[in-house]
């Protein structure tokens, strides 16, 4: 068993702090997401909601055919307060980026996972369709394609950094994701000190595609908002 010798007072104190903070964070998560066992009454209530939702969808009360909805800290909500969750599993997000090698532009699709997480899928855009380019041909992504998911409610952002064919001359480096309304601005801080603003689309999505030699190497994403500043190291 690895142990820090007691005479290493400062190192041991840090270990104790991390144990205490770790346990606090676990308790905090449990408070935010309490485990519960659904009762019959809740099943009945959910069934009723499903019926109402079905009717509402039929009358286009939901935003399924509207634009993307930027989520807030409490979850996905219509900015005008008309409803709770847009049926966004097929929704094309607002963020777009030109391809650095002149091929089809890049875009995103957002959806809510069954576990309530916010997910983002990256792809190439042709018309209003999102897909991939294989052997020079566009292939639309299946509706059940999985993306990068996380809890927007607790993190306030979902982020992914991916490299495509990094060894090839036609390589691309992508940084994409979604932020909620607490986030007001973002920028990439390169190790050289150079900053690059990350534009946040109206629905909260963002997307950078670069063709340089790893422009995000040892860089950080600086996220500013009403909950303060967060600095996220960018690693592949």
């Amino acid at each position, binding site marked *: 068993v690895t142990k820090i010798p007691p005479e290493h007072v400062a190192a041991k104190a840090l270990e104790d702090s991390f144990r205490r903070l770790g346990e606090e964070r676990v308790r905090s998560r449990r408070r935010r997401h309490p485990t519960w066992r659904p009762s019959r009454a809740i099943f009945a209530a959910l069934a009723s909601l499903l019926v109402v939702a079905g009717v509402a969808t039929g009358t286009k009360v939901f935003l399924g055919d509207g634009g993307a909805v930027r989520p807030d800290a409490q979850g996905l909500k219509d900015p005008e307060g008309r409803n709770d969750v847009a049926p966004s599993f097929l929704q094309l997000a607002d963020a777009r980026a030109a391809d650095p090698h002149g091929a089809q532009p890049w875009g995103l699709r957002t959806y809510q996972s069954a576990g309530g997480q916010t997910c983002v899928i990256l792809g190439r855009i042709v018309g209003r369709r999102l897909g991939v380019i294989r052997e020079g041909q566009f292939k639309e992504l299946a509706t059940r394609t999985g993306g990068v998911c996380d809890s927007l409610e607790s993190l306030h952002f979902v982020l992914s950094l991916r490299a495509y064919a990094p060894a090839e001359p036609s390589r691309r480096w992508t940084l994409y994701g979604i932020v909620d309304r607490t986030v007001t601005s973002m920028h990439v801080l390169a190790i050289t000190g150079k900053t690059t603003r990350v534009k946040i689309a109206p629905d909260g999505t963002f997307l950078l595609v670069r063709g340089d030699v790893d422009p995000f190497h040892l860089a950080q994403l600086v996220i500013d908002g009403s909950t303060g500043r967060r600095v996220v*190291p960018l690693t592949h």
Partner: protein
Amino acid sequence: MGRGLLRFGHGRATAGFVGARADPSTFADVYVEYHEQVLRFFARRTLDPETAFDLMAETFAELFAHIDAFRGETEEQGRAWMWTVARHQLYRWRERGIVERRSLERLGMPIASLGQVEYERIEDLADLQRVRPQLEHALDQLGSEQRHALQLRVLEHREYDEIAQQCGASAQVIRARVSRGLRQLAKSLAEAEPAESEELLT
């Protein structure tokens, strides 16, 4: 929790960075497992035990603060993330000359003072004999008091109390002289440092 949970790639249940993301209460085990490697990384580059310790503490505080944002699925990716954060800390220290304590402060984590045993342990990790030729060259650039303190401590391996007695100053003052001298030396060594550290290749 012990080391067993941190043996990766042997078909056993793993904790590590991936586990700590799901269960932050296990992050302390990640710290216990890796803190000495990170401490050695900083000690060899700063040559100053206190600076090395502060940078190590801030590195792990930043990792803990952002564990939810860690995207990796393997421990190797976790270690890569850790070294990236560590190198950022070193870069910022070299640029600004001070150790940032942003994450430590945000988490409300105080740093205890290094005891004698711990201080000397970090000096051992720095392996100062490794840089003896550069050190001898750099000594000429220092003031006489710093040069004398460094010669006795690093080249002759004398105890701080013994040096203090010989110089007519307290051990604390001698430690500060050695620390300042080594920091100056660290700047000259930084230029000769290889692009990739051995830690980053593990």
